[in-house]
Each structure stands twice: as structure tokens, then as C-alpha cells.
């Protein structure tokens, strides 16, 4: 049990620090370690809990809590949660503090201005890669197109649009 908890801590502590660009970067490694290396669950189970974490709101990385839960019960879930979130938390918190202190520096305005287009590019990159991994078909494309226009140019509430999307797919397919 202790050994399993240590394995969970080591695995997710490392994966958290390697997840540049977000959780998608480490899903393949996570699946291999969970199913092959440690044999904590089957491939089917991994895909199912991955689907569960996608169906619930919040960060997809929460799937690690379910891997921990399966491997070592509620203690495993807690260890996995802390291991994946704590190191990146400390890193970005330290970065944010440094950023706050740099506000008075002469180069700060330039840095802020230079980061903006890159950040917007990354937002679109996220949208484009979601588009690429979307279910094929006209229906989903149409939902995405209408949602984009509604949410960019009107003050429609996003939840309303998402409920509409879900309802439409349920009704049509």
C-alpha cells in the first residue's frame, strides 16, 4: 500500500511537471504508466474514466484522482491529486509573484505587450486543436460555428449555447 502510494506520488509528480501546454501533453504517458507499467487498470477502464473526467466540468487532469482511487483507494486519490497539482501550483505562483514585482521595471510594458498576441494565438490554437479532434460531421461543425458567432458577437450565456449543442446532438442523432 505504501509502495503504491509512493509510486502514485512519483508518477504524477513527474507528469505534472512535464505537462507543458496542459493535460493533453501527458495523457499518452499517463495511460502507458497506468495500464502497462503499473497495471492499475485495463485500457477500457482508463478510457472510461477519461470519458468521465471529460463529462464533468473542471480540469481534465482530475482524471488522476480516479487512477489513484482505483490503485490505492481514497488515500491514492488524495496523493495523486496533490502530486499532480502541487508542483505546477508552486511554479506558477512563484512566476506570478515575480511578475507582480516586475511591474515597476522599465521593460514591463514591453513584456506585457509582447505576451498578448502570443496568448491570443494560443487561445486560437486551443480552438483549432479542439476542432481537429472533434467528431466528424456537419452537425458538430455547425454547432461550433453558430456558438462562435453567438458568443463572440452577442451576450448570450455560454451555458445556454452548450445546452443547445447537447440538445441538438441528442435530438438529431
Amino acid at each position, binding site marked *: 500500500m505504501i509502495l503504491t502510494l509512493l509510486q502514485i506520488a512519483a508518477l504524477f509528480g513527474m507528469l505534472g511537471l*512535464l505537462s507543458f501546454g496542459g493535460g493533453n501533453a501527458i495523457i499518452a504517458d499517463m495511460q502507458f504508466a497506468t495500464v502497462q507499467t503499473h497495471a492499475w487498470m485495463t485500457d477500457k477502464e482508463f478510457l472510461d474514466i477519461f470519458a*468521465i473526467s471529460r463529462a464533468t*466540468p473542471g480540469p481534465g487532469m482530475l482524471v488522476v484522482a480516479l487512477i489513484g482511487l482505483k490503485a490505492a483507494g481514497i488515500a491514492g486519490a488524495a496523493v495523486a491529486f496533490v502530486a499532480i497539482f502541487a508542483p505546477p501550483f508552486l511554479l506558477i505562483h512563484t512566476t506570478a509573484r515575480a511578475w507582480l514585482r516586475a511591474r515597476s521595471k522599465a521593460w514591463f510594458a514591453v*513584456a506585457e*505587450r509582447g505576451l*498578448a498576441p502570443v496568448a491570443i*494565438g494560443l487561445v486560437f490554437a*486551443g480552438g483549432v486543436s479542439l476542432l481537429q479532434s472533434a467528431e466528424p460531421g456537419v452537425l*458538430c461543425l455547425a454547432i461550433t460555428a453558430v456558438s462562435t458567432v453567438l458568443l463572440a458577437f452577442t451576450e448570450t450565456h455560454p451555458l445556454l449555447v452548450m445546452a443547445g449543442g*447537447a440538445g441538438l446532438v441528442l435530438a438529431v442523432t
Partner: protein
Amino acid sequence: MQAPAPPPPSLWQLFLAFFRIGAVSFGGGMSAWMRREMVQKRGWLDDRQFLAGLALAQISPGANGVNLAVFIGTQLRGLPGALASFAGLVLLPTCAVLGFGALYFASRGGGLDAWVGKALTGVVAAATGLVLANGVRLARRNAGTLPAGLIIIVCALAIGWARLPLLAVLAVMLPLSLLVARMQVRR
């Protein structure tokens, strides 16, 4: 351009604001929700600050939405703010994931209901629109110049479409963007 900063929110207000985001951010698009709640509705930070946080949150390892929440919490209220934001964001999703996961493991490998998958497909399609719309809103307000527009397009296509490694693209585009910004500020 800098509006007078509103008083910083209390830790409880931070917690609640992020709790709401955690509760509704189905299918991704967390940073879009954060801009809506933090910049547009509450004015706790402006677009400039938000975008800097967004860039740094994506460069730093970790879940992007969580990183952005911690960044915003730190900016507004230091370490306690970071903890309140983090806790608010993940509390409900963690309970939901553990609850559904425990049910799933207890049901001994029964599959997910088909309608959940279908509904999710629609939600993700709409959430993709939410992400793109967030990009459109941000670009309309913060990308007035041609070089900025080009940097946006190259970053989006290199990472999102060509799937080049994030860090490699940033190693080229970030210095370029800073150089452009420096020339624009001097002018």
C-alpha cells in the same frame, strides 16, 4: 487605457467566483469563462493583465485553467488568494469526478450510458465555439497592428493545426513578439 483599479476582492469572493467557473466549465474553455467572469463582469483585472497571465499560465507546466486561476489569485491576493482560487476552481469538479468514478468502479465495468456520450459531443462542439469566440473577442480589442495579427495566426496554426511542440514554437515566437512590442513602444 488603465482604468482605476477596483478594490481587490476578498478571499471569499475569489473562492466563489472560481467556484462558479469550476461548476460550469464543461468541455474545456476554462480560460474563456475566466475572462468573462474576471475581466468582463467583475473588472478585477484588465485584458492586458489577463493576457500576460494566460501566456505565462500556458508556458508553465500544469493544467492551463488551474495555472491561470492560481496566477490571477496571486495577483489579486497573494498566496491566500492563490489557494482560495485553486480551491474554488477544483472543489466541485473533484467531488463530481470522484463521485461518478466511484459509481463507475462499483458498477463493475458497466459502460457509460450512450446518451451521456452524445450530449458530451454537443457540449464539446459548443465549448469549441466558446474558445474560438474568446479568441475573437480578445483579438478585436488587443491586436490592432499587423505584426500582432501575424503572430496570432502563426502561433495558432503552428501549435493548433501543425501540432508543432509548444515550447519550440514559443522559443521562436515569444522573442519575435517581444521585439515587435519593443519597437512599437519606442515609436
